[in-house]
């Protein structure tokens, strides 16, 4: 069963084709990584999946429904969760309130339920002890964990993580990989990453983008041995 699929999805900006006719499928329950050199079109592609930008051509299907015309906030309500590449939390609000905002439209007014869900999410990423702190006062690594907690709390069907390990220390990266393996099976995950090590250790399958097209797709081992992928990254293609 495919949770997310795209059909000939394209995005043009004036004369430039950032995403060129991509048909892409994520089966339910998979941890999928999306990698590629800078400018490959990863961010544009994912923005079209989440609804942040509109597609020029093609379609996006989520959970069996054509969501191509749906605005971002409705896609989130349909079961997607999205964390930003550049940490985008509410710096002047408490850690608790940050996560509470993520879940309140689901708990609609039941503050007890909200509290339960927030505490669960904070515990899952390991920042429960910081619930009353202002989010802006957290360390960078903890802020990224907070972002993930905000996504988790929504109990999405698909969790989209945009470069989640960027700027994290090694210990924090290990913690992150543990988190992903805990989530495996509970939700489908789409990971956009530059850190190949993280990708190799946590992904079930990898899609490589280059110049707006899919260059290769397969298991970590297959991608690791793929000459074309190596060439793309080293710039010899």
């Amino acid at each position: 069963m495919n949770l997310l699929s795209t059909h000939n999805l394209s995005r043009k900006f004036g004369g430039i084709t950032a995403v060129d006719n991509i048909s892409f499928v994520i089966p339910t329950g998979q941890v999928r990584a999306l990698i590629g050199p800078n400018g490959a079109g990863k961010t544009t592609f994912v923005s079209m999946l989440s609804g942040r930008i509109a597609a020029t051509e093609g379609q996006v299907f989520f959970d069996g429904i054509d969501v191509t015309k749906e605005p971002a906030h409705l896609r989130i309500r349909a079961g997607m969760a999205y964390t930003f590449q550049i940490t985008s939390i509410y710096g002047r609000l408490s850690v608790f309130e940050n996560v509470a905002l993520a879940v309140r439209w689901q708990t609609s007014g039941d503050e007890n339920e909200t509290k339960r869900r927030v505490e669960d999410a904070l515990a899952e990423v390991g920042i429960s002890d910081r619930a009353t702190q202002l989010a802006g006062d957290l360390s960078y690594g903890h802020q990224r964990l907070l972002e993930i907690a905000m996504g988790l709390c929504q109990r999405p069907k698909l969790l989209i993580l945009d470069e989640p390990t960027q700027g994290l220390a090694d210990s924090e990266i290990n913690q992150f990989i543990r988190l992903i393996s805990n989530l495996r099976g509970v939700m489908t995950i789409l990971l956009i990453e530059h850190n190949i090590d993280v990708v190799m250790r946590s992904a079930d399958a990898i899609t490589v983008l280059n110049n707006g097209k899919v260059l290769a797709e397969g298991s970590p081992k297959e991608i690791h041995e793929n000459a074309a992928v190596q060439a793309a990254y080293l710039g010899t293609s």
Partner: protein
Amino acid sequence: MSELKKSWLLHLGIVALLLVLQFVLPSYHHASMARIMVLTCYAMGYNILFGYTGLLSLGHALFFAAGMYGLSLSMQHLEWLAGPALIIGLLSGVVVSLTIGLLLLRTTGVAFMIVTLMFSQAGYLTVLYFGEFTRGDEGLVIQQELRSIAGIDLSDPTSRYFAALLLMTICIIVSLRVVQAGFGRVLVAIRENDERTRMLGYDIQRHKLSAIVLSGTMSAAAGACYCLLFGYAGATFASVQYSIFPLLWVLLGGAGTVLGPFVGTLFMFYLIDLSSGLTTAYMLIAGFSLVMLTLFAPQGLVGEIRRRGLRWLP
């Protein structure tokens, strides 16, 4: 005691204090307080959009005037009674804010500010253009005998004070309910980071529009009541000056706090009152305060109090 209870006690306590003051204030200050309370409602309306949602309007006088002229024109030309005219004033606020709001949704940041300024200017000029009906700058005077609802003569100082206090209490209650409910928290989230809020699953356009309509209607209510209680509607209330005032009052008192608008309006009213006794250039105080506030105290008085300790202040 829960923070919620503390908030309600504090705010209702202030209302009670004002109630008591009615009986002890000398007549000049009695009249001033009545004015201040109505203008506070204008500031509270403004605060919902600026303080909580983070949208800076430079044209709120349009809403205040919509209420004021909705009421005064229906009383003057259609010969309606005060009660129904008040409803018209409110409805004018709803219609104008809804219309402008739908257009404003297409703008952000500085463009938003300028568009509000432009629509408000157009409104002011329209009031002048139809001077035949509105008497322009000279203004409309509503006769004393017409200014009564359900037999209560609102031109009488005591009734007038209570009416103003009633309006302010309603606005405080509405503000507290909005701020403490989910809707209010989403507005704050939009203010802090609107893209993030969108990607959490919230329809930010619908929230912004609701905030604009709520804000505009509260301001219009203040405008209509001002005319009803003080018997006068004039083009000055639609001018840029009256769009700058609520910004000033809210900034001074504390944007994003429920009591801030009251504190700011109270303070500024007396400051300008005192200085207009000294010079015709009393707007100098307003200008100077705006600069100082932007530079040194963007949190305002109540905002600073909240920041330095009383974090539960809504």
